[in-house]
C-alpha cells in the first residue's frame, strides 16, 4: 500500500510547522482525495486542517473576509455575499455539484488542480505532474485548453470559477508560513506555466492559505458571473466571465472584467475594462470592448473557437448585468 502519515494539527502554527515538501493540507478533500486515488498526487503526509479556526465571514470594515475553511455552499448562501458581491455567489452556485459545494472549502477551491485529462491520467506524460515528461495536450486533444498564458510546456486551464470572480474584485489571499504571515494579490498568486508548469502558485513550502480578503467595492452590487459549458450543470467552464460595472447615468465609469476557461490562470482583462470606461452601456460598446480581449490569444488545434467565445461571453455577461440595473 502507498502509505502516508495522517495528522490533525490543532493550530495554524502547528499545521504550518508540520508541513513541508511532500505534505498536503486536507480541507474538503474534493480535489486531494480524488487525485490521490488517481495517484496524481502522492503526498507522504496529509495534514487534516479542518479543526483549525479558519472559519467565518466578516464584513466589518467594508470588505469581506472569508475564512479559508468556509464551505462553498455556506459562502454562496450568505446574504451579505449575495447582496454585496453577486458575482461571488453566482460563481459558487455554478461550480461543481451541490454535494461537492457542501464539502469543498474556499481555500481548497482556489488551489484546485487543473482538469486537463492528461494531468489526471498517470499513464500519459505531463509536465505539470512529472516535470520534463512532455505535454500531450499541445498536440493532442485540446478543445478545453487555454488560449491565454499557455507555454510550449503546458496549456492547462485553471478550473476555479470562484477565483475568476475574486480576481475581478482584486481579492487577496492571506498566507501563513513558518516565517510569518503575508498577503498576496490573488492575481499574482497564480503563476504562468512557462517552463515550470508544476509550479502553480506563489506559495512557499508549507505555507497555508488562511483567509481570502475582498476589498470593499460598493458598486460590485452590480456584478455578475456567466459560465458557458457543454453540460448545463456539474461541468467546468469552457468560458466564463466575471463582470462588475459602475454607471453614471448611461455611462460606464468603472469596470471590472475577468474570464475563466481561457487562461492558464484566472485572467483579468484590464484592456477590456479601459475600453468600457467612459462609454455608454450599450451592446455596441460591449462588442467593441470585448474585441480587445482576444489580443495575445494563441489557439491550439481544437480550441480555435475560444477567443470568439470569450468575446461573446463578455458581451453576454455585460448585457445580463444591464438587466439587473
Amino acid at each position, binding site marked *: *500500500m*502507498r502509505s502516508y502519515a495522517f495528522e490533525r494539527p490543532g493550530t495554524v502554527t502547528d499545521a504550518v510547522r508540520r508541513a513541508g515538501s511532500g505534505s498536503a493540507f486536507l480541507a474538503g478533500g474534493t480535489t486531494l482525495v480524488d487525485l490521490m486515488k488517481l*495517484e496524481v498526487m502522492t503526498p507522504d503526509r496529509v495534514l487534516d486542517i479542518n479543526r483549525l479556526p479558519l472559519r467565518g465571514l466578516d464584513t466589518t470594515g467594508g470588505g469581506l473576509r472569508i475564512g479559508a475553511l468556509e464551505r462553498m455552499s455556506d459562502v454562496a448562501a450568505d446574504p451579505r455575499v449575495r447582496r454585496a458581491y453577486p458575482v461571488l455567489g453566482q460563481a459558487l452556485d455554478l461550480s461543481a455539484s451541490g454535494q461537492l459545494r457542501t464539502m469543498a472549502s474556499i481555500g481548497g477551491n482556489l488551489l484546485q488542480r487543473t*482538469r486537463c*485529462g492528461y494531468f*489526471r*491520467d498517470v*499513464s*500519459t506524460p505531463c509536465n505539470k505532474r512529472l516535470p520534463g515528461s512532455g505535454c500531450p495536450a499541445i498536440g*493532442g*486533444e485540446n*478543445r478545453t485548453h487555454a488560449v491565454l498564458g499557455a507555454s510550449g510546456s503546458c496549456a492547462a486551464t485553471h478550473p476555479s470559477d470562484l477565483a475568476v470572480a475574486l480576481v475581478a474584485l482584486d481579492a487577496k489571499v492571506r498566507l501563513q508560513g513558518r516565517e510569518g504571515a503575508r498577503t498576496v494579490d490573488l492575481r499574482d498568486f497564480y503563476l504562468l506555466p512557462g517552463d515550470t508548469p508544476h509550479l502553480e502558485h506563489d506559495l512557499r513550502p508549507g505555507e497555508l492559505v488562511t483567509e481570502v480578503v475582498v476589498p470593499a467595492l460598493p458598486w460590485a452590487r452590480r456584478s455578475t458571473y456567466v459560465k*458557458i*459549458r*457543454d*453540460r*448545463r*450543470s*456539474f*461541468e467546468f467552464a*469552457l*468560458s466564463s466571465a466575471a463582470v462588475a460595472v459602475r454607471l453614471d447615468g448611461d455611462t460606464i465609469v468603472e469596470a471590472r472584467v475577468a474570464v475563466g476557461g481561457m487562461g492558464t490562470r484566472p485572467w483579468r482583462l484590464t484592456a477590456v475594462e479601459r475600453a468600457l470606461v467612459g462609454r455608454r452601456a450599450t451592446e455596441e460598446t460591449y462588442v467593441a470592448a470585448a474585441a480587445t480581449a482576444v489580443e495575445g490569444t494563441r489557439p491550439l488545434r481544437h480550441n480555435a*473557437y475560444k477567443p*470568439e*467565445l470569450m468575446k*461573446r*461571453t463578455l*458581451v*453576454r455577461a455585460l*448585457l445580463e448585468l444591464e438587466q439587473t440595473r
Partner: protein
Amino acid sequence: MTTSPIGRIGRETDRVDGPLKAAGGARYAADHQPEGLLHAHLVQATVGRGSVRRVDVSRAEAAPGVVAVFTPFRPLPLNPPSPQQSGENYSALQDTAVRFRGQVIGLVVADTPERARDAAALVSADYAVTPSRTSLADGSPGVAQGVVQKLADGVPSIDAALAASPVTVTTSVSQHAQHHIAMEPHATTAVWVDDHLTVYTGAQAPQRAAATIAARLGVDPAKVRVLCRYTGGGFGQRSPVWNEALLCAAAARALGRPVKVVLSREQVFTAIGHRGAVRQTIRLGADTDGRLLALSHESDGELPAAGGWQMMPGRDTSAVMYRTPNIRIDQRLVTLDTPPTWSMRAPAEAPGMFALETAMDELSVRTGVDPVELRLRNHATEDPVEGRPFSSKHLEECYRVGAERFGWSGRRARPRSRTDGDWLVGTGMASAIYPAWRQSATARVRFGDDGRVTVSSATSDLGTGSFTVLAVVGADELGVPVGSVDAEVGDSALPPGGVGAYGSSVTTSTVPAVQAACRAAVEALVRAAVENPRSPFAGLDPAAVRYRRGRVEARGRSVDFRTLLHAMGVPLVEAVGATDPNTTSPYRFHCFGAHFCEVRVHRLTGEPRVARFTSVFDVGRVVNAKAARSQLRGSIIWGVGHALLEADPIEPDGRFAAATMADYLVPVHADTPEIDVHWLDHPDPHISEFGARGLGEIGLVSVAAAIGNAVFDATGTRVHDLPITLDKLL
C-alpha cells in the same frame, strides 16, 4: 385486447423489486462476500499496439497482502473464444500481443480490494510498440459487408437513379465512440465448490454467459452457474462475457479461493466494449414534391482488430423506413487498433437514423415540404427492399398525435426566425424505427403451498422492469393479485431456453412463454387435484374441474391452491412453458415512433438546450405503463446525450481522450427537458397473441436527429458531426 381478469395489463404498476432496491437489499455482483474471498484488480496496457516484452511484478508481489500476480508470462489458462462468436477474438494473458490500449495484461490478486489496486499500480511493463491504426477517416472506405440493393426495372445503378432525380440531397454525418455508462460498474465474484463454479456477474443472458464461461475455462457447462438476480444496467454491454469475468473465475480456480474483481469506472471505458465510431453518407433523390426516387446509405464503422460488434447502421433503418423505388445500402467496416466495440442501446439504429432523418430534414428544406408531410408522403406499408408488409404499423397516427400534442401545426419553416429574449428557438421532428424480435423462450410457473405463485425465466432484469412484467403477466393470467406473485430471473440454473435481455425482446419473447407456463401450471394443478388421493377433487374427471382466480373448483366446491396443496401434502405444483420464435412469419416486425422537440440556442454563446420533447410510439401492447414511460423517457434523455454531449475521440496512439466520467459527459437533470411520452394502444396481432413488440430501445432512435433538426431551425446551421456543441454554432 385480450380480457384481463384483474386488469393490470397496461396500467401503472409499481416495480415489484422497487422497495428492495430502494432499501439497499438487492445484492448485485460485487455485493457477494463468500468466505475466504480474495480481490483482484486488472492491469491494462498503456500502449496502443505491439507486444509486452517484459512485465516487472517484483514490487507488486512484494506488496502487502498480495497473493498472486498473473501476466502473459504467468498466465491463467483460458481457451480462445469460438470463432463463430462475435466479440473479442482473443483470451487475455494467453499471448504477449497488445491489440489496443487498455487491453488486460495482468491481474493482481490480494486480500483486500485496496491492496490489489495499489499493487496493480506497481506492475510495470516494457513494450515493443508498433504504430496504431486509429483514424476512421484514414481507413475509409472500409470493407463492404454485403451490399443491399433494389433498383426499379431499367435503372442501371443507384447513381443513375440519383442523377435522374429532380432534387437530390447528400448528407455526411459522423460520430465518435460512445460508452454505455451503466450505473453498476462491471464486477464479478467467482466461487468454486469442488468442481462446481458459481459466478455472480451482471449478464444480459445468464445461460449464454454460463455456457461461454464453461467453454473458455474448459469445464462441464452443467457445472457452471451464473447468478445475476439484480443487474445495474446492460444496454448491450453485458451480453457477452468479458475478460474480467473469465480471469476472475480462472484465478479463483488457480488459487482455490473465491475471487472478486470490480472494475474502476475508468477501466470500464476500455476493458469493456463501446459503441464504435461511424461515418455515414446518405444520398436522397426525390421529385419536387419530396417523394423519394432513390436512397443510398453508405457507412464506415469502426471494427477493432481485437474483435467486436459490427456497426451496420443502414440495415434496420434506411432499408425499411421509407417507400422508394431505388435503394442501396452499403455498410463497410474499417479495422482499427481500438478497444473492442459492442452493441449499445439501439446500437446501429441510433446512428443510422440520425443520418437518415437529418437527410430527410434537408430534403424538407430543399423541397419546402413540411417535415411531417414529407414523411407521410414517403410512408411505407411494406419494406422497400423485400416488399414484405409490416405486421402492425401505425406510424401515421404517431405523426398525427405527436404533432397535435406538441403543437406542430403552424410551424414556419424559416430558420433563425424565432427568438425568446437572447435565445434562438427552433423546432424539429424525426421518425423512429426499431426492429421487434420474438425469440424462443421458456418460463416456469409454480404454485407454492405458501400461497404464492412464482414466475421464473432465465432472462435478466437489468433494471428495466422485467421482474414486474413477469409478475403482472403471471398475475393476470392466473387471476391472482400481483402482490402474491414472485418473479425470478437472472439465474442460469432456471429451465433452459431463457432469452437474452437484448434487442428490446424480453417482454416480446417472455410474455408468451409465461402465459404458456401459466396454462401448463394450471393444467398440472388440476391434474394433481384429480389424481392425488388426498385431494378433495380426487377421482373427478379433469374436464369437470376448473381453475379460477387462484382457486380450484368443481361440483360447487371451491378450494384455494394453498389449501389444496396442503390437503394433498404437496409442497408445490409447477410447469414449464416454452414458445417458438416467429421466424417463419411473412411480416416485418418493427416498432415506430415520432419525435418532436423544441431547442433553444443562445444567440451569443451558442449553447444548445433542449426545452421540450414530445414522442409518440407504436410498440404494440404495453404491460406496465409506469415502467414503459420511464424506459422511454430514459431513452430520450440518452438521446439528448447522443445529440449534444457524448463523444470519446480516439487519439493517434490509441488512447481514448475522454475515458472518465469527468470527461465523457452524459446528461444531468439540468439537461433534461420536459418530456411528454405517449404510446398508441395497438397490440400487434402477428408477433404474438399478447401483442407486445418491446420498447427498450425505440425511444433513443432519432432523438439526436430531431434535436439536430431543431437546432437547424433555430440557427440555420446544420451540424453533421456529433455531438452538436456550442463551438459548432458560434
